């Protein structure tokens, strides 16, 4: 039986889909059998970020309503044998599916895959309830902005009253220079407010935008700092102890991290 992890944030645009795509790919890179599920019905993006948009035949709603079998709806990744994606429907909205239906589908997927990564839509309504219904664990994504931290706090509160225990935090899009000059919330400050375990920090990286536009997850490119950060998070999900990435931009620092990971 595999494990289902929901990637959520409350606020939109903090990098849920990017995180889902990269963690899914990073876990596949580490040899795990992974399925990513897009629950953002009506505003699906995961397929675009993964570059799999043109391969979609059936979607989540088709499976839920019994128009196809689960296996028929799964889209196989073009890079990895063991990486699949279950796309969301684009022509419907969040109310087209119920938490129970999602739960059943995730349960089915967990039988076949080691990790099921669920990409949650923004907001706290039906879409959020759908996304967390089948999850065993949660990763909350935030950015070092007050608004994002506020929403993450709200989400952690809602997760606390659900079946999911102790969610973990990813702080995305950190700009070391701005943190140093005090213009950006620093990591300790965020953790102090949210009071949950940190599972990783991801630096702001132009590669991420480039990669998302070309349908190739950043994590494939070992020259990107964000890619290393995502790989580290994936290893922490597997239970490895990986030290937090240092945010200093000293030359050579990056190479040392790479060397540490055996990729240099």
């Amino acid at each position, binding site marked *: 039986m595999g494990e289902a992890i929901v990637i959520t944030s409350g606020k939109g645009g903090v990098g849920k889909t990017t995180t889902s795509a990269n963690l899914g790919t990073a876990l596949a890179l580490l040899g795990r059998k992974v399925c990513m599920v897009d629950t953002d019905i009506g505003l699906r993006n995961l397929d675009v970020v993964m570059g799999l948009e043109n391969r979609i035949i059936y979607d989540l709603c088709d499976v839920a309503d019994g128009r196809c079998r689960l296996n028929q709806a799964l889209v196989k990744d073009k890079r990895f044998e063991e990486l699949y994606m279950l796309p969301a429907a684009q022509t419907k909205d969040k109310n087209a599916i119920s938490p129970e239906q999602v739960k059943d589908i995730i349960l089915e997927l967990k039988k076949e895959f080691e990790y099921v990564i669920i990409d949650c839509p923004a907001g706290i309504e039906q879409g959020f309830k759908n996304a967390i219904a089948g999850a065993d664990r949660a990763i909350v994504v935030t950015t070092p902005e007050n608004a994002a931290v506020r929403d993450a*706090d709200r989400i952690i509160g809602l997760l606390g009253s659900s079946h999911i225990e102790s969610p973990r935090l990813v702080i995305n899009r950190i700009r070391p220079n701005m943190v140093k000059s005090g213009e950006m919330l620093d990591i300790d400050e965020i953790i102090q407010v949210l*009071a949950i375990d940190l599972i990783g920090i991801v630096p702001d990286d132009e590669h991420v935008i480039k990669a998302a536009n070309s349908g190739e997850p950043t994590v494939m490119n070992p020259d990107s700092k964000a890619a290393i950060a995502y790989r580290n998070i994936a290893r922490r999900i597997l239970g490895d102890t990986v030290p937090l990435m240092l945010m200093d931009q000293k030359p050579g620092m990056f190479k040392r991290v790479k060397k540490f990971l055996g990729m240099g």
Partner: protein
Amino acid sequence: MGTTKQHLVTIKGIKDGLVFLLDDQCEFTALIQDLQYKLEHTHQNILTGPIMHVDIKLGARSASDEQKEEILQILKQKGNLLIRSIESDEPEADTSNENEMKIMTGVVRSGQVLHHVGNLLFLGDVNPGGIIHCTGDIYIMGSLRGMAHAGFEGNENAIISASYFSPTQLRIADVISRPPDEWEIKESNMEFAYLQEGQMQIDKISNISRFRKDTHIYKGV
């Protein structure tokens, strides 16, 4: 009319007297009406006999001294009733809450509301967007970054204190105050907020004894 028909007053005979069981849910005036009605109409016979001891049981009603006096006056009109006791087993509600402190732990996160009747000692943080409502005092061992409302039902003597005092807004009774326009936050000390002539004031926790003289403990000689 209707009130006299529901038995608000039950009169029971015991070995050495009478027990008046008074309903504790109804309006006090209805209770008085029923008591008078019973004494003057339905139960006249017991009042004309020999002198009798009477115990009055108020149940869970929290009757004021004036109300108790009113009941006594009605019974005293009948010369043969000798009031022995007037009891109420009124629950903790009023008396205990005034002094007792409820301890709660956790994190009040954005969108969550913690409501408490009485005084509250909260161990944990109140995050921005989180709210604590309390009819009495609020003491937070942790950071207050959200909103706290003490004296929720109008108690202007209520206070709010926190180890780390950085609220988005403070309310005591009907007074609303927001930092930092109205007062400065000194981060080093535990502080508390109180009302002085309708104005929110902030002070170091060590100065609380000037405000709360009744709880001040003197040590030594």
